[in-house]
């Protein structure tokens, strides 16, 4: 009995997700930031390559630099996730949703599936495009990478996964906070202000704590060779997935308990 109902819930959420303008706009911004900023950043590196110092050239990672646009696109996908639920609280349509599907965990499950899968598909395509375009721009001047190189395909795939996980993080925060602007503030604080707080900490702490920030995890996921005090790609993915899962569990417990 439960499976067809979850399937119906997924169909319900899918129709809702694709029939508001914020969804295509959010993904358009994601594409624009990932690819557009990727082009700008790789061009900038290409034109300064000959004046860069040798150590920087030695440590240069053509993969993560071509994917640097994702560190801006992470705000777009987070907002997509936040709006997917807070727009329902803002308009009051959450009551229609819960009247249609009173088993609230099913609503959360369906939203996670719809948002997660859609964002993963879009992000993988966009991140791959940013990578290929970046390498084309580097070609002839800057060292380039190919998908067959060690760790390259992994970085590209995890770049897409990073964006999908952050969209789910936004959804979880939106479910807990319920107010759009407050949820966006908390989300951007996690990504921007937490790293600044970490910088204030004593350097011995910094080395242990900094790797746990969401955006640092993202950089680890997209690096072919992460720096020594950072997580390597798979552990970083696991830590981020645990964050997202924990927030979604809290969100589910809260939506089951709170009045709508």
């Amino acid at each position: 009995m439960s499976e067809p109902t979850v399937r119906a819930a997924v169909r319900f959420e899918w129709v809702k997700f694709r029939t508001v303008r914020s969804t295509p706009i959010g993904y358009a911004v994601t594409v624009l930031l990932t690819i557009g900023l990727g082009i700008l950043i790789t061009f900038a590196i290409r034109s300064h390559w000959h004046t860069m110092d040798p150590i920087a050239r030695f440590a240069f990672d053509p993969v993560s630099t071509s994917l640097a646009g994702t560190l801006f696109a992470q705000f777009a996908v987070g907002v997509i996730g936040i709006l997917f639920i807070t727009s329902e609280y803002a308009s009051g349509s959450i009551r229609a949703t819960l009247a249609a599907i009173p088993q609230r965990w099913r609503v959360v499950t369906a939203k996670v599936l719809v948002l997660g899968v859609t964002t993963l598909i879009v992000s993988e395509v966009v991140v791959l495009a940013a990578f290929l375009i970046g390498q084309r721009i580097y070609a002839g001047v800057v060292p380039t990478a190919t998908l067959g190189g060690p760790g390259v395909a992994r970085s590209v795939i995890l770049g897409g996964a990073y964006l999908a996980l952050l969209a789910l993080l936004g959804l979880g925060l939106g479910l807990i906070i319920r107010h759009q602007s407050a949820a966006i503030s908390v989300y951007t604080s996690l990504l921007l202000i937490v790293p600044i707080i970490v910088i204030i900490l004593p350097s011995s702490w910094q080395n242990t704590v900094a790797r746990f920030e969401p955006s640092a995890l993202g950089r680890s996921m997209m690096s072919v060779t992460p720096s020594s005090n950072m997580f390597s790609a798979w552990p970083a993915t696991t830590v981020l997935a645990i964050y997202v899962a924990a927030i979604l569990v809290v969100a589910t417990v809260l939506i089951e308990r709170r009045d709508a």
Partner: protein
Amino acid sequence: MIVVDHVTKRYGHTVALRDLSFEVPAGVITGFLGPNGSGKSTTMRVIMGLDAPQQGRATINGKTYRELSSPLHEVGALLDAKSVHPGRTARNHLRAMAASNGISRSRCDDVLEFVGLTAVANRRVGEFSLGMSQRLGIAVALLGDPGVLLFDEPINGLDPEGIRWIREVFRTLAAEGRTILVSSHLMSEMALTADQVIVIGRGSFITRGTVDDLTSAAAQDVLVRSQDNARLADAISAAGGTTSPGPGGSLQVAVLDAATVGQLALRESIALSELTPVRASLEDVFMELTASATDYTSSPGAADV
């Protein structure tokens, strides 16, 4: 049938519903009356499983709302007409709601037709007037062809044409044997639409019955004209009645009924030129019922619940 069973709902320190119990019988239109803030919407939300009561429970056909696996087929509700994402079209809103409970797309077109929104189905709901939103809300309520319907203040903000339309809709739905609970703060509206009413005040049950029952049970004044109002007034006071000046030199008598006033006049040999029972207006009855709501935990009408 809807059963509200000893429901108490608090929001922080505010008690919205106190030990509220009533049943909504199947197949008729039941009016749910109470002044603004008396807990009608809270009761509706508790029935819909949106808000959880601290005590008691509400069931529909024997199940709590959360136990319904395909609720739109059993219960349709219009709680707040404006609670639709303003950027979505009417048709897409209906299609999404339909998908949630495995309802066909053709049913969406049918209910759009029924509420007269076919022509504007592809417009964004944000552009809708309140009347159009109410129609859309009714279309959603009818999507799953449910046997039980809940409407919270459906005529609020409607123009006369919309009010007339909504009354016709209720009659049509009731004629099909559906159970309908309609809340309102206007007794006169319920007199026109409801077969029976349940009255609550400050979160507590006050009474139930047909509108006629409630009106006739309410105190009736008597209007009297005589050759000597002053002496008649004294006689009435002596008999336990109260008087006040009525329109056009008449005397308005409370507490005593017309027969008693007539006998008093005969005994005092005062000739009467008029003796008229004044039926209380529906709004008077309503005010009288709900004014002292806090003093009531139940009332004579509660016995037959």
